[in-house]
């Protein structure tokens, strides 16, 4: 095909590519002034989130949150539509990870405290045989093995929510603070979300460890597609994560609209082991669709 270049067209095309070339003037950074995670050195954790500088990665949950989950995973795993119902922002990640069955392979816990090899998060990061779907982070670049090893070490340590130092500080602070009422901090599925059938397991994260003797009376699952119908449930605390309660329907949930209600506000309200109770009913609704 013959090419005829008029002068104005040539100038315009050259101008366009010049602009593109100017945009392309960047090159890889030399890392000067940045910490081990590529964030500016010297900024405290209270700095604005876009330029905060988390401490170097270590085998404790907060460090993993600051260095991996927040900067990398929450690009997708955030909000009501987070893939597989797994929200990995600071407010939800621990409650929905530790001791919670994975949505893709429900027989495997996302994080099985003490057993990184049998933890689905490690399998997904390493692209191990048996996973469903893609290796994470989706599309790469994938985490270096040394980084995955740190996550595995945290799991080997029992997957605690706080480091021993933080635990001490937190316990002292807790003794001095006024008791706070019990709250629901995370749910899976999230309010208003749509998930694919069959749904095998649900989870509710609480701000305090709930008193298990209240569970059966206070937590209710209903199919509200038409007239509300109660769905039989098994309730248990998540392994290594007593603040999260797992709801396992006796049969996986099929298509329909469902509502979970945690009773609060009176003498039979959901209550924590420290005696604090839920001040009012808490409920969330979700839809299960056929694949």
């Amino acid at each position, binding site marked *: 095909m013959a*090419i005829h270049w008029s002068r104005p067209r040539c100038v315009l095309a050259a101008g366009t590519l010049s602009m*593109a070339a100017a945009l392309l003037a*960047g*090159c890889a950074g030399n890392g000067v002034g940045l910490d081990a995670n590529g964030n500016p050195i010297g900024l405290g954790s209270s700095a*604005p989130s876009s330029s905060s500088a988390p401490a170097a990665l270590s085998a404790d949950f907060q460090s993993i949150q600051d260095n991996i989950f927040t900067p990398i995973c*929450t690009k997708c795993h955030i909000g009501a539509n987070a893939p597989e119902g797994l929200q990995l922002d600071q407010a939800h990640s621990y409650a929905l990870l530790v001791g919670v069955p994975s949505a893709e392979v429900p027989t495997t816990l996302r994080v099985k405290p003490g057993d990184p090899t049998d933890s689905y998060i490690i399998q997904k990061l390493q692209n191990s045989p048996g996973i469903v779907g893609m290796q994470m982070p989706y599309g790469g670049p994938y985490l*270096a*093995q040394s980084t995955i090893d740190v996550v595995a070490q945290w799991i080997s340590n029992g997957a605690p929510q706080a480091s021993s130092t933080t635990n001490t500080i937190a316990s002292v602070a807790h003794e001095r603070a006024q008791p706070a009422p019990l709250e629901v901090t995370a749910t899976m599925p999230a309010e208003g979300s*749509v998930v694919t059938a069959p749904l095998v397991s649900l989870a509710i994260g609480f701000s305090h460890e709930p008193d298990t003797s209240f569970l059966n009376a206070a937590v209710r699952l209903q199919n509200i597609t038409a007239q509300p119908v109660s769905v039989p449930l098994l309730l248990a605390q998540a392994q290594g994560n007593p603040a999260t309660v797992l709801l396992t329907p006796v049969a996986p949930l099929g298509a329909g609209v469902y509502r979970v209600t945690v009773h609060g506000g009176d003498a039979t309200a959901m209550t924590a082991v420290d005696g604090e109770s839920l001040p009012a009913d808490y409920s969330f609704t979700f839809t299960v669709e056929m694949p």
Partner: protein
Amino acid sequence: MSKRPRLMALRLLLAMVCFAASCAYAEPYLAVQTGLKCTQCHVNPTGGGLRGAYGDVFAQTALPATHLDTGADTWTGSLNTFLRVGGDLRTEAEATEVPHSKTISQFSLEQVRTYVEAQVIPERLIVYADEQIAPGGALNREAYVLYWSPGHDWYVKAGQMYLPFGWRLQDQTALILQASGINMTTPDQGVEFGWLKGHWDGQLDVTNGTAGGPVNDSRKQFSSQLSWVESVWRVGVAANYNDKLGGSRGTYGLFGGLRTGPISWLAQGEVIEDKSQGFGLGRSAATLLEGNWLIARGNNLKITFEYLDPDRSVSNNGETRWSAVYELTPIQFVQLRTGVRYYDGIPQVDSQHTRLYFVELHGFF
């Protein structure tokens, strides 16, 4: 239609393909190489997915190094007057090297996709579905109804669709696609108005802004792009604004293409301002420059340079990626791709120095 007019139509189509010299294969560089709009070879006016009859015939005649003669039996995807089908299968062997880590090598089935187009009113009203059937469970990517104006100079599309934003590259891990978050893994639900008048090619989309997921508020995402297409060059602008719960995200881009002899160039630059939850005031930028050298028929060498500034308020944190990919299409409907992707970034982060080597087999129809 009787056999004779159909055969004549096929010959006419083949003649058009030959006249167009090296027409579209299925990637945007082909549009630049041929000076055509995406809609010339794809059912979707914004490109990708099911090829049209023109694209199918081109894939059998002008694309491969050698055309295996099938006589009068030429695949056009048509099952009958109203129904057309197509598909893509990509499987690869790859090795990933990350400093201070053991090399991972694996075979993987990248994707198997099927496309169905029902021309319920021929040339005017289309019902279309794009389904990924592997790996994992079935996953709907696109599903929409598209109404064309009588002269095909505007259309309205409604349903679930990929959003328009600059070059729709085949490589979904490209930094410009990862940075913008607008790619072929994140379709959204809404409506699209397209305008393809003369040299102009434009789209305006209003969608939920939830990447196909459910919504529980009235916020929406707005996407638009407008380009001017000449036979040897084109230039366009694109914008996307997602009014998300927890903070808005705006992405603005400039893209262009130029053909210089056997080389087709693509360029794109974009800036992102993300005020959504978890990112604070995130201001980032990404650029791409790609050259495609058509060495010989069926042989293309693709060299790509990409740059990402993940936080424009921070210095010395840039990331780059170089890719060299050789694409051989030995016969119709089969393509072999082999290449290397070379990431570079700050020395502190090993994963920013990943090396990826791959060989991919791509079968399509």
